């Protein structure tokens, strides 16, 4: 054993230093060319909801089990925004809170509970149930559930997480991995062995989505190569939604939501208001189709005692074909808030003392 101890630590440190030194130097020299890493998500202000494609469900865990009080915002909100990642990126609960508070003359809180990850409607129902959310106004983006489901299997991975302890450790694992990579980014390079040949890149090498701790809005969407893609985008103004080239994939015959949503909103005396956040899906947007879908949604909503507020696509842009840009989010949020106030659907909450 003494023979083993002799020289072990010195050799370890020396070997690591000799190998790591040039790598650190190389990393320092090349990191100036890289887009900046996102601001560190400080607990209480922001949290990492996704780091790497396999862990896209931290927000689900946090909302479901109120991890570190993140789900508390959901519980105390007067108005909850529900939907997919279209809602998560497309609306700002923080901005809407300010708008409604101004209109009501008292603090009104809105929480953005939009969730990506191909989340089914049943999860939202469970969320409302578990968190005992009743007698609220729910603003629901109708894209979320049955339209054109894409094959993103992360929700099935999330659904295997069965209890809050497991959820807590899963969230901590994702956060510590992000924090570690964030800390070493710019100091140490990373070698990726996927593909035909090894590539050397930055240490923070996975896409990350960071959400607002208190409102659930997207604070930052980071990609290793492009830097921050949302709310500010390096890709210019994004893709103009209203003047997209060809027909929208959304089919008028697949409008599923209002009746089903009424089933979960009704028993808890929640009041759903439906909308449709404009988006582009390749091959693009078609104005007539969109208007047709909006008309159908409005008709279906009224038949099922639901309420519908249209959100016009003019002037909105998307950064990836699916989600609005940061600038478009501000416009869409203002537009929706104004429409909601004008429609009188929120009169009960806006008029309460």
């Amino acid at each position, binding site marked *: 054993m003494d023979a083993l*101890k002799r020289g072990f630590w010195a050799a*370890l440190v020396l*070997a*690591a230093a000799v190998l790591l030194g040039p790598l650190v130097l190389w990393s320092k020299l090349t990191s100036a060319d890289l887009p900046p890493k996102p601001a560190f998500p400080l607990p209480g202000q922001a949290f990492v909801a996704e780091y790497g494609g396999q862990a896209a469900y931290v927000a689900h865990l946090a909302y479901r089990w109120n991890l570190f009080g993140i789900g508390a915002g959901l519980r105390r909100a007067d108005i909850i925004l529900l939907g997919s990642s279209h809602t998560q990126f497309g609306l700002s609960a923080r901005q809407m809170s300010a708008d409604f508070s101004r209109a009501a003359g008292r603090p009104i809180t809105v929480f953005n509970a939009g969730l990506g990850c191909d989340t089914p409607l049943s999860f939202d129902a469970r969320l409302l149930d578990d968190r005992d959310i009743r007698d609220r106004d729910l603003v629901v983006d109708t894209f979320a559930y049955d339209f054109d489901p894409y094959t993103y299997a992360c929700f099935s991975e999330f659904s295997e997480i*069965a209890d809050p302890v497991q959820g807590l450790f899963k969230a901590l694992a994702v956060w*510590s991995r992000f924090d570690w990579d964030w800390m070493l980014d710019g100091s140490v390079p*990373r*070698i990726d*062995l*996927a593909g035909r040949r090894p590539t050397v890149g930055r240490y923070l090498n996975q896409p990350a989505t960071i959400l607002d701790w208190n409102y659930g809005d997207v604070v930052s969407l980071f990609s290793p190569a492009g830097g921050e893609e949302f709310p500010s985008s390096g890709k210019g103004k994004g893709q103009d939604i209203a003047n997209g080239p060809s027909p929208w994939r959304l089919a008028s015959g697949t409008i599923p939501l209002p009746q089903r949503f009424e089933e979960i909103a009704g028993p808890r005396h929640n009041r759903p208001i439906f909308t449709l956040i404009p988006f582009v899906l390749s091959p693009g947007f078609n104005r007539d189709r969109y208007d047709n879908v909006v008309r159908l949604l409005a008709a279906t909503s009224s038949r099922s005692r639901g309420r519908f507020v249209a959100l016009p696509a003019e002037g909105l842009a998307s950064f990836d074909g699916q989600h609005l840009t940061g600038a478009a989010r501000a416009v869409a949020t203002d537009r929706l808030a104004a429409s909601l106030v004008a429609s009188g659907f929120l009169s009960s909450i806006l008029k309460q003392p």
Partner: protein
Amino acid sequence: MSYTDVFFILLLACLCLLCRCLRPWPAIREWTIVVFSLVIVASWGIFPLVLLLAVAAINFVAVGVALSVSPTRQRAILIAAIAFDIAALGFFKYAHFIAANLGIELGTNFGVAALGIPLAISFYTFHLISYLVDRMRRNTPPLGLRQYLFYLCFFPHLIAGPIVRTWQLPSQLGRVRRLRGDIVLGVHYFVVGFFLKTVVAGNLANAIDPFWTKDTGAALSAADHWVVAFLYYCQIYGDFAGYSLMALGMARLLGYRLPANFRAPMLASTMQEFWRRWHITLSRWLRDYLYIPLGGSRQGKSRAIANILVTMLLGGLWHGAAWTFVVWGAMHGIGLAAERILGLQRKFDRFWQRIPWWLCTQLWVTVAWVFFRSSDLSGALDFIRAMMRFDGWGAFAVHGRLILPLLIGAGAVLHHAAPIGLATVPRRYLGTCLGVATGVLLVLDLIVYAPNKVFIYFKF
């Protein structure tokens, strides 16, 4: 929580520091480790923890009750406890499999849903049976609660082995130990194991997983199929030997020693030698608690062969409730039986005599891995058919996408050479040599991206 998570490594570092502070008080240190181990189980879900504690409690009470009754009743109680453990394992792991297969035979549907295998059940069931049988044979004294929980729940071995025996771990408890030498080897084992698991196995899995699907596999040549099967051999070695080394390292860092689980299996020249080098603690367990009680080799050659086949079939089934695992076990059983019939158990006198048998053994093992990896029998048979399909020179072409995985797989192969290389190092340079190797691998652990893959044996 996976043992390769940054969060786990931080927790482990904290635990090591705490245990170092608690060194003069072994009982407190051991309870701390038990609690930590239970938290690790809870991080995979409350249900696996509750099940583990319930099964552990029933066994502990059974042993306690057996102590106070007559020898005949004692034996009956311990046999009942063993039957309970096997029933619990069978219920969670095999009920769906048995019901589904019976349903096919009888043309009915029993409606038994797949329950999902609770974490570590296969491993702690073996630990429990080992304790009960050793108690029955009076090979081990009854363990106190702390010793018992430590033996059963010690987190380095709890989830995927090494399978520890009562004479190996409890005898280390309750003592103040010197840790300094253990830390050197602990760090070395952990760093090397982490490298094998994350850099080698994780990246290999990422590279070759797509080739196991029918669509992608169809585009491959026969040589590609052989390469993919061999790379899976490297992957599972990296995954499991890496995990086992990490377990040994974690135990050493806390001042305990676990038995080695791997000893260069790719160097094995016979199937018997393979099982002395691959998952050593499982093969010893199967030998001591299954093969020998069945009669071993004491009752003639044909009975010994039958015992080998039964042992290996059950060993295969232990890995998972699927026919692919049964066939994998059968192939190993047939290999071992064939060696017994051919009288290949003797040692080879010369190096060159080993080569043909080494080649046969490793090819047989590689083909058997195809069953282990495939999701169903037809997929495995298709894969093997493609391995044997020689349609001109194209059959020997190796896909460009397999070149980098072959280089990654070399990490697993080179690990086999490490003991041979170290044996040539003069004793006074051994520490320096290990330090350099650990330092280099530590940097590689740090800078090479590892896809987040769960340990293969966590599923068992």
